């Protein structure tokens, strides 16, 4: 896209992208550490990432401040306005995703004194797709890639399939091994948080869709071929 006549305006929009990019990287590492911590019952790692969540919250505040500053000083319109509005939404969604990582870490703390369960080994598989959705949604925002945003949006259906299959296994384990039902419940909560990462990534994809097309997101439009949008 052609640059603004006022260079500082371009710099501010770049800074907004950079903040969200950094917030995304940090959150991805939080998700990885959350899964590692629950797999290895690593309490220290869990506590470290819980503390680190403050950094993500601080970045969200910085995005808010910069976006409000751009709105007040530059009065953006058209694509610029949509970018600023999308940034505000996306930073909020990323912050929520970071909260899910914290929640998973908290289940590590709850599970630490219990024996390992086979079902825990499935969590790294379960997280793969939501994590990929999140990463791709951030790339779609950074590169204004409509096709990638739509791909992310569709991936959530698969996440739901995996999530339901995992729930089924947990329920069966609960029936077979009722004395550990408390621990299995923690796994249920962890799985739910992983599934929510997929939902929030889908929301990011929707924000990117509106940013690029200028249209409010509607599922009926998504069913159409991308080239028709």
């Amino acid at each position, binding site marked *: *896209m*052609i*640059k*603004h*006549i*006022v260079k500082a*305006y371009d710099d501010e929009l770049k800074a907004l992208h950079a903040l969200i990019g950094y917030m995304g990287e940090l959150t991805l590492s939080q998700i990885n550490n959350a899964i590692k911590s629950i797999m290895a019952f690593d309490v220290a790692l869990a506590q470290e990432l819980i503390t680190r969540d403050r950094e993500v919250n601080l970045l969200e505040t910085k995005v808010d401040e910069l976006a409000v500053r751009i709105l007040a000083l530059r*009065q*953006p*319109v*058209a*694509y*610029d*306005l*949509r970018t600023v509005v999308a940034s505000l939404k996306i930073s909020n969604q990323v912050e929520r995703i970071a909260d899910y990582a914290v929640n998973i870490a908290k289940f590590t703390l709850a599970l630490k004194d219990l024996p390992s369960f086979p079902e825990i080994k499935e969590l790294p598989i379960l997280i793969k797709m939501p994590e990929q959705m999140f990463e791709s949604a951030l790339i779609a925002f950074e590169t204004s890639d409509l096709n990638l945003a739509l791909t992310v949006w569709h991936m959530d259906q698969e996440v739901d399939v995996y999530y339901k299959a995992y729930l089924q296994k947990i329920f069966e384990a609960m029936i077979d091994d009722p004395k550990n039902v408390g621990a299995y419940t923690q796994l249920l909560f962890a799985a739910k948080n992983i599934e929510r990462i997929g939902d929030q990534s889908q929301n990011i994809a929707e924000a990117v869709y509106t940013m690029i097309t*200028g*249209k409010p997101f509607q599922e009926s439009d998504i069913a159409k071929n991308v080239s028709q949008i």
Partner: protein
Amino acid sequence: MPFKIDVKNLSLFYGDKQALFKVSLGLPKLQTTALIGPSGCGKSSFLRCLNRMNDSVPNIHIDGKVLLDGKDIYAPSVDVVELRSHVGMIFQKPNPFPRSIYENVAYGPRIHKLFKNKSALDEIVQTSLTRAGLWEEIKDRLHQPATRLSGGQQQRLCIARAIAVSPEVILMDEPSSALDPIATAKIEELIDELREKFTIVIVTHNLQQAARVSQKTAFFHSGHIVEVGETGELFTMPKDERTQGYITGRYG
């Protein structure tokens, strides 16, 4: 939505130089239409065609049609003075006559003989000043020179003077570019109120002003209309790359 003014294939030449190229634009009744675009794009030339203000420019040539309620204002039978009582104009710099406030507003009704007696004229003056949002501020000094008013008050006086002859359309050429933000806000509020009775066309370089006051916006470039549409849509989702570039400040 019926068009109060419907411009069809309007071309304007200053001597050999063509300023407008077959421009067509409908101006909806009782709405404000904003004309935006870079300097020299033809938006003011276009505005001045709507009440034949360009007629006095030497070597000018105009093709196409400007229909006011379906009647061509460039038809030979049209009385230009009468036309301008229907289509008034507000300029960039407030230009009150060097007379009293009262006389400024009474001038138009006098030359067009729009009243029967003094009290009827008083009523026109009061109504016009009230509609222009100026009455409360100046009702006790109606016979003082208009030039003593502030810039913003002078511009509202010019609006009162324009509406005193009961026009149907008001053309505004950068009406608040010489005013401070408070006076500008008063003019913008006034434009919104005037829309109940008048069709308004405004040329402005202030894009935020165009976004705030108008319902329809046309983007001019090099004598052509690049894009025209509902104002909210044009400023959030312009269709043409050139409109996007201009309104976001990426024009170059």
